[in-house]
């Protein structure tokens, strides 16, 4: 995280971060000169949400194209892991609100 802006009147900091896996994170606040300011109650929650999955069935050979709608997804395909019944779904594209992935050739795996 880095400091995005400082509001001295209201004694407030605005922080930004580059994304993280879903979960809760404890934030430790330090000052360059004063050292540790505090950790109590500084909890940051990162969450992604799924609002719809387009296909709920697919060929037993694999190859189904899935569309997953939601929010707070990573735009980096390397951050996304989608499995269907234990089979990897290869990321075709990903945005903040939609992931497209295609199941591999399952017949070659079984």
């Amino acid at each position: 995280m880095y400091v995005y802006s400082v509001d001295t009147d209201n004694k407030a900091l605005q922080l930004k971060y580059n994304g993280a896996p879903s979960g809760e994170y404890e934030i430790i606040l330090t000052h360059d000169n004063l050292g540790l300011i505090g950790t109590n109650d500084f909890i940051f929650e990162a969450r992604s949400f799924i609002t719809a999955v387009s296909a709920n069935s697919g060929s037993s050979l694999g190859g189904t194209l899935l569309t997953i709608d939601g929010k707070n997804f990573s735009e980096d395909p390397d951050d996304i892991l989608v499995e269907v019944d234990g089979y990897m779904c290869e990321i075709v594209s990903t945005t903040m609100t939609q992931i497209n992935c295609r199941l591999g050739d399952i017949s070659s795996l079984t």
Partner: protein
Amino acid sequence: MSEEALNSGSPTCGDSAAVSLDWTWTDPVCEVLTMNTEFDNTINKYIVTVFGTGFTPDDLTSVSLFIDDFEQNTIMVSATQAQFEIINMLTTSSSNVRLFCESGLCAGYDQFDNVELDLVYFQVIPEHTIPQVDGVFAPARRLQDEETFFFSSEYGTSAGGDCYRIRGSFGLEDSVQLYHVPTMQGICREVRQQVYGEAYCETIPLEIASTDELALDVNGALIGCDDSS
């Protein structure tokens, strides 16, 4: 894994409990029966025709052909037939061929896992148009002090270094060379390929008459001038 197996998934991203993540495996909806490849000389493209069942007529998005993991251009779909224009391959043949319909891979796709192209055309296009001045052509980009370049045709320079764009049905991993038939030597000292079907040839010093035949060599197989345009 059994067909019709049911997977009761659980959300792992945030509060998505209202979204069903159940999954059902089904029999393949589409099937490939035969597949063939032909060259369409009206558009200078190879066309793959797939005969099968389970296609959605007139829906070009309902069926996809992938060759070497490149999606090809779907141009026609009927209930029993689909046609694709080849727009990308790594080489002139591939065993990595997959056909998808909306439910996934089509049954039998792996029985027709080879697409081969017999190269039937190529086209050489000069990349630099050189202005003519009293029969002497002076390309500004190569002109140096006291140096004059003479051209045997309206394209190129006998000093070499000119650039031709070669269009044909070769892939990024094919070895491409342009041959000067009268002397049977390759005229490209460097060939750059960036996309399927297109290469750039930087020439060696050689005088090429406008009537001289050129031939294209793809992976050691020469394509004669009769097939060029």
